[in-house]
């Protein structure tokens, strides 16, 4: 605030602006540099990369994408990832939303105990519970099935989804619900037509979070799925991570295939996120 003297307003502000821009440029390089590097490598062969890791993708080997897609079963992995992640995220949003709404709106016995119980399990290291989970999946006949993986994904992301949504639902003014009740809304339509739309920003957050985390999920995908036809993309990348030779070029290509859809979803969603927030801003 001391810079706010009248004598040098232009140069002071200009300097600060320049420093700010410099910081922004540096941080942008830090955050995107690795990504740009991978993108460049995805178009180069491993031999080229070994010769010069920082070369330009020239000539660009677009055929590597085709080869990853068709020869390495990527089309199957991709489709599996899309179906499994989309189903899980949709289920999560509805089931988690219902539970969060319930925790935020109603009073009932053992509410805080129940909430605490659900929330506390996200703390457990999955590396250990996976064994118990496996036994249960076998008992239910869900082992090595896509449906099973979807349900497991729902279960692992459920607490965090409820946690985020509950915090948001709880901040919606009570009057809104009282008014709706007087207008004759059923409990379900209060949830469906008031809670959910008003909570759009929080829902967008959980959708983005869940999509990204599940799209990249690895441990359960390895342990619960044994057949190649049912595997998901994170395992696809691993195909190139051989013991034999780290096929840097193909890993980069596989990575780009896995990452581009998520970037697109994000680009799309981040716009919606802003819109949703301005439209649904709670006054």
């Amino acid at each position, binding site marked *: 605030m001391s810079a706010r003297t009248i004598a040098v307003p232009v140069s002071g502000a200009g300097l600060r602006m320049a420093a700010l821009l410099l910081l922004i440029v540096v941080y942008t390089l830090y955050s995107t540099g690795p990504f740009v590097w991978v993108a460049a490598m995805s178009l180069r*062969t*491993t*031999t080229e990369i*070994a010769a010069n890791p920082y070369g330009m993708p020239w000539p660009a080997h677009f055929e590597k994408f085709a080869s990853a897609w068709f020869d390495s079963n990527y089309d199957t992995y991709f489709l599996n990832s899309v179906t499994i992640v989309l189903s899980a995220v949709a289920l999560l949003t509805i089931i988690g939303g219902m539970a969060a709404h319930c925790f935020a709106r109603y009073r009932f016995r053992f509410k805080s105990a129940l909430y605490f119980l659900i929330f506390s399990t996200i703390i457990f290291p999955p590396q250990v519970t*996976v*064994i118990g989970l*496996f*036994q249960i999946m*076998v008992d239910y006949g869900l*082992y090595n099935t896509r449906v099973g993986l979807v349900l497991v994904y729902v279960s692992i992301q459920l607490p965090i989804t409820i946690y985020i949504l509950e915090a948001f639902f709880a901040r919606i003014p009570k009057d809104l619900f009282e008014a709706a009740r007087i207008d004759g809304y059923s409990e379900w339509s209060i949830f469906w037509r008031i809670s959910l739309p008003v909570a759009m920003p929080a829902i967008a957050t959980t959708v983005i979070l869940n999509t990204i985390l599940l799209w990249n999920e690895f*441990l359960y995908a*390895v*342990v619960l799925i*044994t*057949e*190649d036809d049912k595997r998901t993309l994170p*395992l696809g990348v*691993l*195909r190139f*991570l*051989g*013991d*034999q*030779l*780290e*096929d840097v070029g193909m890993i980069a290509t596989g990575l780009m295939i896995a990452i581009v859809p998520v970037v697109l979803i994000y680009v799309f969603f981040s716009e919606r996120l802003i819109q949703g927030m301005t439209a649904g801003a709670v006054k």
Partner: protein
Amino acid sequence: MTLSRTVGALALAAGVCAAPAVQAQELTLWSHWADQTAKVEFVESAARAFEQANPGVTIKINWYQKEPLYAALKTALTAGQGPDIFYAEPNQTEYMENGLVLDLKSKLDWNNIEPWAIKVWGYEDGVYGFPLEAWTVETYVNLALAEKAGVEIPVEGVEGAAFVDAVKKIAAAGITPMAQGVADRPYPGAFLTHEILVKKLGVDDYASLLKGGDVKWTDPRVREALDYAKQIIDAGAFPPSISSIKLGEAHRYFHTSPGAVMLQMGSFYPSRAFASPDEGGQPKDFRLSISNGPVPEGAACPKCKTIAVGGSFVVNAASEHADLAAAFLNSMATPEMGNKWLEANLVQTGIKADPSQITGDKAAYLQMLQAANEGASYTFGIPVQQMQGNPREVFTQTVNQAFPSGIIGVDEVIDMMNGAY
């Protein structure tokens, strides 16, 4: 019951099973080696041949990387599930301890298997694994770079201070003396130290040392051996980046870029190095030699080295098709198959094979490997295969990693290893 089973297995094994196809049966097999084409082809072709010979039988193989395979197996077996046949290595005694794998003693034709390989898979009264892959620890030499540095690393190895001098000379020439990398494996950094140790102590005392027997890490001979290894390390033997180099990269470091004079590696070296150059293989016209490596002064057994049984197949104790599974393994236990394995993979096998039968362009390498093992006596398994639990963990962190990277010295190694048992 067991008798009829055995008879059934023998009938199948002998290929007498000309009787009309019984019913459709599916054998499942989970294996490592997902990206080792030659091994995949070997097992797949054996499977197809077995299916041909046994109508109605199909063999379904899932190929994994090692890490995911072990995770999947551990969960599946704990739940009483899992494939009929799976990949295992002989150090995984937990399978036998818990009765998860079938005793194959009476089910396989062991006449075609090397006696030492049977011994490695022996547990209590049974024999549990079909030893497909075996390997020795070798010191590979890049002849062109050795000449450039003006040193000679002969087949019989280099004794005592002469080896340290050679390392110094190579380093002074601006060349890395020994390529190595420990970023993704718990054992390669320890090759140098444990080969010196086994030569210094001899097979029995060495085993006693690893297994926590009478020979302790505080033994003066152990200190001498470690001091010798430390001299080699301090002479600049390893690349400064040893901790971040992976096993596959170490190969490439040795033969292509930047190049090193030596590489201590399992004799599975060809599975990577004999691929085409753009798949990470050694360059065309690469001149390779194999040496006995550094031999410590006062060695109890200068010809001692390590042989390890690697990838093997075991039969799930919970399998409903145990006899059929054993029969399939038996179909691979023939000298012909042994030679086929050698020729395709250029790494030893527990199946009795005859390398002299092999002709063609790879014969020269196999002869070289044989020459390097002339008159050798072996300890079975590298240390991480002979140790369990805490000693194994401490060994991995110290002798495999921190010691060759120069982070810790001889005293710390002795202290930490001594405290680990």
